[in-house]
């Protein structure tokens, strides 16, 4: 803007001022955060970027894997033998139960047919390995080595040999992200195994779980085992989830403060089982409606 009216030549053109650029990028970041947290609309972006970054990520795991392999190489043979023996013993113990279970399941099915009840869904699943814990320190997420290519979908349940560990929340091409039960945003409907009292279990964040919304005089004791109630249509009923370890009966609060420990080895890494997604419960038949109307009714119910 010189006096003569000519623009100065763009020798020192540095674009918009730094503060303007800062405001632009900050606004863009906040918009992204709102879109992700509130509306969950960025999943496809995540999938694209994750697929592009995958080869680099694979390379980054190599040193850790190598260190792991070296650790395996120097393990003592006596340790291996001891482990082998204990595994054999466990297998024999489990075999006793398994042999009987087949018999019991058959019997159960026959009885259910006799009583004209719905068949129970049997448990099927794929074995996956936890590769690493996600770096995000604000949440409890882990990454497993099966993904969309192996048919893993968001919402599937992860268990280990002791009980429920968590739920798949995002599935990428070859990996999937699992939110552990101890994550603060995770909730699971449970019932007390002893008396069938139903409630909802929430993650407390510090490796613990919290049973909320039970009144102070509810029949819960220390040592009670909580199993899934299956009311949500996601978790199969009867999977062990947690054990009550502490109950605070404080009468100033309406609800009891009940702390639980997960029964699954949630903070340990290893092999897990990804259960197939549960077939949704059949909706009650709608009668006396024209086909159009019944379609509408079904949509509203979902």
């Amino acid at each position, binding site marked *: 803007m010189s006096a003569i009216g000519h623009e100065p030549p763009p020798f020192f053109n*540095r674009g918009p001022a*730094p503060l303007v*650029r*800062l405001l632009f*990028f*900050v606004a*863009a*970041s*906040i*918009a*992204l*955060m709102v*879109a*992700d*947290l509130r509306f969950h609309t*960025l999943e496809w*972006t*995540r999938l694209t*970027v*994750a697929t592009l*970054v995958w080869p*680099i*990520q694979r*390379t*980054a*795991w190599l*040193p*850790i894997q190598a260190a792991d392999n070296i650790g395996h190489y120097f393990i003592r043979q006596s340790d291996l033998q001891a482990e082998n023996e204990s595994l054999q013993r466990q297998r024999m113990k489990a075999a006793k139960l398994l042999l009987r279970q087949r018999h019991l399941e058959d019997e159960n099915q026959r009885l259910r047919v006799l009583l004209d009840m719905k068949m129970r869904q049997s448990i099927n699943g794929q074995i996956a390995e936890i*590769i*690493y*814990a*996600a*770096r*995000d*320190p*604000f*949440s409890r*997420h882990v*990454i497993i080595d099966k993904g969309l290519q192996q048919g893993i979908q968001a919402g599937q349940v992860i268990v280990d040999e002791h009980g429920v560990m968590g739920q798949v929340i*995002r599935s990428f091409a070859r990996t999937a*992200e699992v939110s552990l039960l101890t*994550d*603060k*945003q995770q909730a699971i409907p449970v019932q007390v195994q002893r008396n069938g009292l139903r409630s909802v279990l929430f993650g407390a*964040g*510090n490796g613990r779980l919290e049973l909320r919304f039970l009144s102070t005089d509810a029949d819960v004791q220390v040592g009670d085992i909580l199993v899934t109630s299956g009311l949500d249509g996601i978790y199969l009923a009867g999977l062990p989830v947690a054990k009550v370890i502490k109950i605070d009966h404080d009468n100033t609060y309406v609800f009891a403060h009940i702390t639980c420990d997960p029964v699954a080895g949630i903070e340990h890494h290893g092999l897990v089982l990804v259960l197939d997604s549960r077939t949704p419960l059949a909706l009650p038949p709608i009668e006396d409606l024209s086909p159009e109307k019944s379609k509408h009714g079904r949509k509203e119910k979902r």
Partner: protein
Amino acid sequence: MMESPHSMRRILLPAKNWFIVMTLCAALLLNMVPFGYFLGIPDWIALVLVFWCLHQPLKVGMSAGFILGLLMDVVDASVMGQHALAYVFLAYAAAALSRRVLWFPLWQQALHVLLLFLGGQLIMLFARMFSGADFPGLSWFFSSFTGALLWYPLTYLLLAPQFQPQEKDFHRPI
């Protein structure tokens, strides 16, 4: 040896673009190594980004921080935009400080950088706590301190390609 690059009285060669890109990619790779919940693993991208924003504010800036932040958000499985916000702030603050900080000796530079890293972590903390996430514990801030400790070796490592062989020529004016 504890001198600032500016008071070393050595004329540096211009920084090569491919070297800057390569170091940023290497930082991204280091950030992807799954260390799990180990304490004090520095945020390598923040470290290298602040370094280049201080030394080459015209070449590396907020847009680089934004893109790297988005990549980190996907890799870290955190909320989209969380790292982007922190890195954009880091890049802005580093570029604003670049004229001044480079004249300090390296350990005082490290103190400046430490404040930047802590600021970046605080931004992430506020962004996540605001959306109801869990407080990760004070030990999480430990990574800023290890990052600041690494400032001294990092400066020599990243400036190494720009040093030219020192030949003593007392007839030359500079």
